[in-house]
């Protein structure tokens, strides 16, 4: 089998200094700040501090009229990336996927909805259609006709880098030939107020690694790379801009906002990336630091750099004062900076630095200067101690060969917190929403909540407590095992987020909420599970509507397949919240069949080669997007490419939920039965747990139970309303 080295054949970028590298590199070389006074929204408490705001009208740049600000930024960067790669997306869309990091998602647009609701008592729910962090992925995939594996990653400030690392894994494992990968995040009042509540903002604009630094500055933007299997790029005659040779992820498992004081997680991620690339530290010619400008981050990163490189730290810089900290986009923006540095053989400077900090004891690059570069490193670290590191190399580099991973694992434990079968409860909708009552399927009281620590009980929201309890039920602690966590979610921590934003809007920033802000990010449950279990491996929070669980399962299985983790927790979590209840009711989405639900489900996975007792085996997993109009025959072909149809005994599907998908599911089961030459038994789960984005995790628990108890081969098949699809094959 030919090597599937990931190479970069196109880049697209939009950020405060401009659109495209032709505009941005001169700004980098000038060593200036790209920060200007905030104008996007009004901030009575903090005023017009310097931020990396994009002042151009996005629709003038050709962005679609509909979509969130983050969606439009992603679309603009993706268009440029496709153009620069000369990628013909009309052919080969089946093997091309989209993987973007986003942590703000449509929050900026949802804030318009909330302002109208709270201040004018008017409900214009349209902007909330684009609220999810997966919305940019849907827009890019639909606009450019891409049908390969696609999802979003929402791990705060490391999202963009983790998306690139995961896209490289999808290419290396053969799931895709081409990936549009990167990150996008707009400014939002929520993240603005949130970081201010943590006293992490430098009023003078960020000054990374400077002795007088006082915090971060906000930014916004998007960057998208065309990542491609080398053989595919060569076959179509594409120009290779650079290679992605190394990537590594880790979790501090230390604290929700503070980095590990010695930078232990940052060091582990840098070491993992070097290991993957087969490089020694001395071969790295430049490091684009995370360098947010906060006191603790820069100090911890400096320590990690000194631990890794000893007395010989290579030239490094943070470009955050040029772009601002664009959160989930920053890892992708800085990846583009690294690729351009390699192409031009120049070192980008670190604007904002004037005085060395004697405690850090390191001086970054202060002026643009030429250098001989073959390998460069890019660091991204985020909330929840979430670390991702990338290594880019020149096109002439001979990459280290690796065996193609075998994506097969065993399930050794399941933790399920789900609604009780047959129980419907009435949930009153509270202000500021119009009063109403919605029938729901809710999880009951958490029976083992008393086993949580006092700090977990007083500070963590219910969804995060559910995740911790489900994880504990699935996992037997073993300090000798390297543990990864991938916890999918559709809507994330909506309760915490809603309380935070309502407070922000009604009190006009007067009462900050420093505990709730980090508790409202999508990766809060995954990060807290890692702290609870000491899980220092990959920590991911993928999100993709109804296939959020399968996206997490893929990441977890791949960590075991590539030997990066001994065990991995794969799961998904979503909670009931008055906003989707109310908006869904207004749109007529909830009815007698489609009842909103919630759950936390986590499976403990181990290698098939391990001698742990197994509940079942997961032997195939595939992600993709279906075409409109929907054809069951196409779907059966897609499933047949991963699973021997004659061996399937049972199908577990997401039917009996949303009526819009009912006919699709029934047609696919009928087609599979026809091809198997016998009627396949069809099981469903949404009649018991309700309809919600993480529901297929309940389907997975059902499939594992059926495989184990009936000794049958089970296909778990899931569709999303926005064209995502997933299959998972479970054998006894």
């Amino acid at each position, binding site marked *: 089998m030919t090597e599937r080295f990931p190479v970069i054949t196109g880049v697209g970028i939009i950020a405060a200094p401009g659109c495209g590298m032709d505009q941005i590199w001169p700004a980098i070389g000038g060593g200036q700040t790209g920060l200007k006074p905030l104008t996007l929204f009004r901030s009575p408490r903090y005023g017009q501090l310097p931020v990396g705001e994009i002042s151009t009208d996005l629709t003038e740049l050709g962005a679609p009229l509909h979509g969130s600000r983050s969606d439009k930024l992603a679309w603009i960067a993706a268009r440029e990336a496709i153009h620069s790669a000369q990628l013909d997306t009309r052919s080969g869309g089946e093997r091309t996927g989209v993987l973007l990091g986003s942590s703000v998602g449509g929050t900026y647009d949802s804030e318009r909805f909330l302002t109208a609701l709270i201040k004018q008592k008017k409900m214009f729910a349209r902007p909330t259609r684009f609220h999810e962090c997966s919305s940019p992925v849907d827009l890019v995939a639909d606009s450019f006709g891409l049908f390969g594996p696609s999802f979003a990653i929402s791990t705060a400030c490391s999202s963009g880098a983790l998306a690139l690392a995961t896209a490289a894994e999808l290419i290396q494992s053969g799931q895709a030939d081409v990936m549009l990968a990167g990150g996008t995040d707009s400014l939002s009042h929520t993240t603005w107020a949130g970081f201010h509540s*943590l006293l992490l903002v430098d009023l003078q604009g960020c000054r990374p690694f400077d002795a007088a630094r006082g915090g971060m500055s906000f930014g916004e933007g998007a960057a998208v790379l065309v990542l491609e299997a080398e053989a595919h790029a060569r076959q179509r005659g594409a120009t290779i801009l650079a290679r992605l040779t190394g990537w590594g992820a880790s979790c501090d498992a230390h604290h929700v*906002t503070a980095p590990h004081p010695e930078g232990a997680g940052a060091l582990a991620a840098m070491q993992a990336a070097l290991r993957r690339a087969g490089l020694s530290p001395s071969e790295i010619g430049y490091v684009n630091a995370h360098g947010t400008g906060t006191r603790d981050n820069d100090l911890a990163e400096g320590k990690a750099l000194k631990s890794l490189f000893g007395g010989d730290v290579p030239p490094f810089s943070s470009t955050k004062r040029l772009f601002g900290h664009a959160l989930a986009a920053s890892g992708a923006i800085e990846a583009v900076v690294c690729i351009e540095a390699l192409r031009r053989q120049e070192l980008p400077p670190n604007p904002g630095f004037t005085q060395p900090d004697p405690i850090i004891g390191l001086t970054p690059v202060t002026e643009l200067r030429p250098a001989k570069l073959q390998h460069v490193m890019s660091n991204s670290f985020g909330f929840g101690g979430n670390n991702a590191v990338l290594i880019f190399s020149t096109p002439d580099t001979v990459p280290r060969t690796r065996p193609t991973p075998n994506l097969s694992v065993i399930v050794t434990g399941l933790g399920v917190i789900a609604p009780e079968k047959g129980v419907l409860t009435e949930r009153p909708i509270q202000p500021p929403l119009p009063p109403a009552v919605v029938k729901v399927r809710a999880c009951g009281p958490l029976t083992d909540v008393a086993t949580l620590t*006092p700090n977990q009980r007083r500070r963590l929201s219910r969804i995060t407590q559910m995740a911790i309890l489900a994880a504990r039920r699935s996992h037997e602690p073993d300090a000798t095992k390297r543990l990864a966590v991938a916890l999918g979610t559709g809507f994330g921590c909506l309760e915490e987020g809603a309380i935070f934003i309502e407070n922000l809007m009604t009190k006009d920033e007067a009462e*900050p*909420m420093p505990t709730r802000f980090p508790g409202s990010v999508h990766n809060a449950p995954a990060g807290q599970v890692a702290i609870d279990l000491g899980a220092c491996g990959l920590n991911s929070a993928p999100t993709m509507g109804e296939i959020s669980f399968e996206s997490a399962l893929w990441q977890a299985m791949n960590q075991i397949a590539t030997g990066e983790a001994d065990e991995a927790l794969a799961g998904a979590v979503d909670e009931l919240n008055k906003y989707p209840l109310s908006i869904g009711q207004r749109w007529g989405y909830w009815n007698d069949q489609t009842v909103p639900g919630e759950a936390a489900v986590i499976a403990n996975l181990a290698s098939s080669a391990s001698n742990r007792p197994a509940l079942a085996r997961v032997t195939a997993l595939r992600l993709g997007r279906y075409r409109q109009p929907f054809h069951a025959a196409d779907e059966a072909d897609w499933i047949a490419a991963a699973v021997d149809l004659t061996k399937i005994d049972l199908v577990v599907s997401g039917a009996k939920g949303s009526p819009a998908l009912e006919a699709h599911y029934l047609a696919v089961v009928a087609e599979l039965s026809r091809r198997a030459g016998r009627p396949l038994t069809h099981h469903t789960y949404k009649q018991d747990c309700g309809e919600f984005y993480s529901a297929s995790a309940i389907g997975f628990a059902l499939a594992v139970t059926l495989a184990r108890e009936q000794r049958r081969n089970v296909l778990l098949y899931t569709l999303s309303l926005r064209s995502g699809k997933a299959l998972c094959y479970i054998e006894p």
Partner: protein
Amino acid sequence: MAIATTELKAQIIESLNLQDITPDQIEDDAPLFGAGLGLDSIDALELVVMLEKNYGIVIKDIEEGRPAFRSVRTLAEFIAARRSTS
């Protein structure tokens, strides 16, 4: 003007959601952070919010509040000193 430490303890308990703790369980001189009540940097930020809400004292740099957050007594003294200067 000195402020009653019992009242301050009740405010700390409320702002930090210390569900299982009563004011008489917190000693005036016991450390609030680290081993004491198991509080951390996020709790310090909640105390910053509490000081502004209840006493009108604005802290913009957490370093400024650090000496005050050692114990209930140091916090009471800090509040008294800030009030007399403003």
